[in-house]
């Protein structure tokens, strides 16, 4: 059995030798180059674009402006399509926009013979705008009289939903309750995958082929069809290796525009390679959410009632929209169950870059607010913060009627135990209790709630194909994508065990090609290992049945008495090897009397979901005069069920922790209040952690096999990024006594707070 073993990645050799091919590596040098003209105002209308000078430049092939593109609004979110119009993603984008809604909006595109020419032509385009007032903050954007972004959404509210349990208004009238209130603010951040989004398109056989750096090839194919108003089958989407995605590429980005421009130059090859500066602004960002939490508590800390308001900054276009705030609100409701609960979630358009999916999908935001608030409660009531959590967090047996999720195990406590031990919690809490001086230390922690895949909000299905070769090896194909997380390796491990062949006998086809690859919606929602497990097992069973039926013919043994293990057909009773799968496969294909190509293909629809829980513990040293918090130690502990590949799981957690640390301490995309212009859209000014900004990252697991899962596994891709910021925040709280309710907790924020609190 290979599931559970730390086998080496199937793509590692190609990646360390530079052979792994990414989108740009596949583009022919003959490609025309596309460059986009982005708006230099935050809100208004393009009155005119003068192409005269640009068209004079030698090498310019075609210029499209917002006045040229079809009026076919399309949605971009990487969600499964819904056949119910009420559940479809909001279609509020055009290929190029005359109504400019943020600084950086796409208003024209140049196709030219080379990059320099395209860039010069973009610079030579003369734009006249009619400027309108703009708004950057969601709460201001909701006010009457604020600038309107999309006509059909009054007060810019894309969606408002309310969760309600019990009777909040009545419950808070109970005598003697302690009211604790806080506002918690999270920033706009960007995914910063090292490969920028890039795609190229060409037409052949009456179809448009788009090769793209995307997480979701089958979804992007549909969106390209919708945006161009052509049959979806006329689009072929190919996804090679990609240099990270983290949710940004869980959206149709520039594939529709690239495909459109290809049709405008006679189907010739056009390449659209997005710069880093554009990636920050004109792709997607994480929703900045402001939370307002009010808790009503008895002296023992029990939560009698809780009210939450979330104001989620959608930016200029709907993209993933309300899903993010809604997921966050659900987490707040479930992690500390409260009989009387009210939560209002608003997702609001503003004149900032469009917010989309990003690792954690609303949970990093919600965990920062909720776990900061929880420490504030514990502090105010004088209860040890872990003791407080143990008493009031989601209990074993908790059942969510909507998702039908059950908290089967005592995962949170088990994770907390491991985290406590590593950080030496009890001793350090005591040692750091009463510090004075310029440099102080603290330890803090946070737990997190997550769930796996998107059922029942959306479709969950996965298709798989297995094709047996003459030598008994097999090709494995799924629509679910390798984006760096190690999916191909995990799928290969599961398939090897399910079919009964050695790991080396599974040849996974990493590239998705929507003309060839079975349907699958792709990498998001930490779903793939969970959902693919079902499809792989089911497809393997079909293939095994065919193999054993053929073995029956060859070896005259009843199917019930034989098995396929480790690539051999064996007699179950005594383990005798009757023959190898290779021999069988060769015979099956070349038999002059009974030839058959043994293949299997199936779709599995998943109608379950699973909690994925855990915690983070952090130790910090705060230099008060310099306003710097230095992370000394950090650990994440996860229960993501059975580990398919422990080494890769650990590696994936490291990456999530790094993103969580950046979220807590340094990352933020800034905008000029006067113009809406992005200020730091490059990797120098946007403070993504370098190797010198981390301590060693420690990871541990608790493995309670998930009952609903084919392999006992559940979400791990996103959860690691969710608890780090509040754990660090709570460590700073212990060190300094100062509650920082805004991330990133960078020196600017610490300086202001330390002054307010009289530390400076």
């Amino acid at each position, binding site marked *: 059995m290979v599931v559970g073993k730390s086998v080496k990645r199937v793509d590692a050799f190609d990646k360390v030798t530079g052979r792994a091919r990414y989108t740009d590596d596949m583009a022919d040098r003959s490609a025309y180059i596309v460059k986009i003209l982005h708006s230099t105002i935050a809100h208004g209308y393009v009155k005119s674009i003068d192409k005269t000078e640009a068209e004079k430049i030698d090498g310019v092939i075609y210029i499209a402006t917002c006045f040229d593109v079809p009026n076919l609004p399309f949605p971009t979110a990487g969600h499964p399509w819904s056949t119910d119009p009420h559940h479809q993603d909001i279609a509020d984008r055009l290929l190029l926009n005359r109504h400019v809604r943020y600084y950086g909006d796409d208003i024209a595109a140049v196709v030219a013979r080379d990059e320099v020419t395209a860039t010069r032509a973009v610079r030579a385009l003369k734009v006249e705008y009619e400027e309108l007032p703009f708004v950057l903050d969601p709460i201001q954007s909701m006010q009457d009289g604020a600038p309107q972004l999309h006509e059909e959404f009054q007060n810019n509210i894309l969606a408002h939903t309310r969760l309600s349990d019990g009777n909040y208004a009545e419950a808070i009238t109970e005598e003697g309750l302690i009211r604790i209130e806080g506002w918690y603010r999270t920033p706009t951040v960007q995914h910063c995958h090292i490969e920028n989004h890039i795609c190229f398109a060409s037409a052949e056989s009456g179809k448009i082929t788009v090769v793209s750096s995307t997480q979701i090839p089958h979804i992007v194919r549909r969106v390209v069809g919708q945006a161009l108003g052509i049959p979806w089958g006329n689009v072929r989407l190919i996804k090679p290796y990609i240099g990270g995605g983290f949710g940004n590429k869980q959206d149709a980005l520039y594939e529709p525009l690239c495909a459109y421009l290809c049709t405008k130059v006679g189907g010739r090859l056009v390449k659209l390679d997005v710069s880093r500066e554009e990636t920050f602004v004109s792709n997607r960002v994480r929703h900045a959410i402001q939370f307002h939490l009010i808790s009503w508590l008895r002296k023992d800390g029990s939560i009698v009632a809780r009210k939450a308001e979330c104001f989620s900054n959608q930016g200029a276009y709907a993209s993933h929209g309300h899903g993010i705030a809604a997921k966050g609100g659900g987490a707040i409701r479930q992690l500390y169950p409260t009989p009387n609960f009210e939560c209002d979630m608003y997702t609001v358009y503003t004149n900032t870059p469009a917010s989309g999916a990003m690792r954690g999908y609303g949970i990093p935001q919600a965990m920062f607010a909720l776990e900061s608030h929880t420490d504030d409660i514990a502090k105010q009531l004088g209860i040890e913060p872990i003791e407080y959590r143990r008493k009031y967090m989601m209990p074993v047996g908790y059942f969510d009627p909507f998702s039908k999720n059950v908290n089967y195990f005592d995962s949170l406590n088990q994770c907390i135990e491991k985290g406590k031990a590593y950080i030496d919690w009890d001793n350090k809490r005591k040692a750091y209790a009463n510090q004075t001086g310029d440099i102080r230390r603290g330890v803090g922690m946070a737990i997190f709630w997550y769930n796996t895949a998107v059922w029942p909000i959306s479709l969950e299905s996965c298709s798989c194909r297995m094709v047996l070769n003459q030598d008994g090896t097999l090709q494995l194909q799924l629509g679910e994508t390798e984006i760096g997380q190690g999916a191909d390796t995990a799928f290969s491990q599961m398939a090897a065990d399910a079919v009964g062949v050695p790991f080396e006998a599974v040849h996974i086809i990493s590239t998705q090609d929507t003309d060839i690859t079975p349907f699958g919606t792709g990498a998001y929602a930490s779903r793939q290992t969970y959902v693919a497990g079902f499809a792989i097992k089911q497809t393997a069973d079909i293939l095994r049945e065919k193999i054993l039926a053929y073995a029956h013919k060859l070896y005259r043994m009843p199917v019930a008495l034989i098995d396929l293990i480790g690539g051999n057909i064996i007699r179950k009773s005594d383990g005798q090897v009757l023959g190898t799968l290779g021999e069988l496969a060769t015979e099956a294909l070349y038999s002059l009397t009974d030839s058959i190509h043994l293949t299997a293909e199936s779709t599995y629809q998943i109608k379950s979901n699973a909690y994925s829980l855990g915690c983070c513990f952090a130790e910090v040293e705060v230099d008060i005069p310099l*306003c710097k918090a230095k992370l000394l130690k950090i650990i994440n502990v996860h229960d993501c069920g059975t580990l398919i590949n422990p080494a890769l799981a650990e590696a994936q957690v490291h990456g999530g922790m790094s993103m969580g640390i950046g979220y807590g301490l340094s990352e933020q995309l800034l905008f000029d209040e006067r113009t809406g212009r992005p200020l*730091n859209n490059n990797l120098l000014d946007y403070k993504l952690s370098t190797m*010198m900004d981390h301590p060693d990252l420690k990871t541990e697991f608790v493995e309670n096999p998930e009952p609903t899962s084919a392999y006992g596994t559940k979400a791990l891709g996103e959860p690691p990024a969710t608890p780090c910021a509040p754990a660090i925040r709570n460590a700073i709280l212990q060190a300094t006594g100062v509650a920082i309710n805004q991330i990133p907790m960078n020196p600017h924020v610490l300086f202001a707070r330390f002054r307010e609190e009289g530390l400076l």
Partner: protein
Amino acid sequence: MYDMKALYEATSVEDAIRLLTEHPDAKIIAGGSDVLIKMREGKLAGAELVSIYKIDALRGISMDPDGTIRIRPLTSFSHITRDPIIQQHINVLGEAVDMVGGPQIRNIGTIGGNTCNGVTSADSASTLHAYDAIMVIQGPDGVREKPIREFYLSAGKVDLRHNEVLTAILIRKESYEGFQGHYIKYAMRNAMDIATLGCSVNCKLSEDRKTILDARIAYGVAGPVPMRAPSAEAAAKGQPVCPETVEAFAKAALNDVNPRTSWRASKEFRMNLVEQLAKRALKEAIRLNGGEI
């Protein structure tokens, strides 16, 4: 592919001066870590460039017979840090330029480029100020020398005419002998960052290590150009090595600086750093000199 109009590769300083004279709109490119980025941004798009990168005579560090340290402008940051003359006499300069960007940037970035672009945040500039560096400039009419304090004119502007080339940075013996210094780069990250504030302090102590004979301090980002803080220096000169001197030194520095508020940092925050870094850098400089505090 960069959007440049033409590239002229100079083979010698004289050749560079000739090319610059012939092409009045051309810009000098040394290592390119500044010029090429501006070109990519569009600021220098379509420009003509005179490359001096291949002039090996402008590389390296040596000591003149009178003890003057001669740093040639194309010496990369990493080579400065590894240079034995620097390590022995002005180690703080090697440490300071070892905080520029990351390793690859320190291999391509040059001290000449770092100073001639006139940027206040340059990690080399404050230490060069604090050591009274002399800039040697060659033009069509010959060679002239300029103290670094006068070389910086305003933000992004230095006293280098179009057809002039910086050929050396000199540190005189009296400027370094007996001094030990320390540089603190305050930035938001520990690598790949530009300074929010840079502070370079060096001092010379009496033989018994009880008195500060001389102290010099220079800042980056405390104003539009790198600057010395004369009030601070006066407050420490001749004073006993003690916490009170350090406090007075740091407080006095506030009189000399003029940082601005930008999205990168507020004036108030930078003022806080001006004081804090002065304290810490002086303490460390004293310690390096064998003093105890």
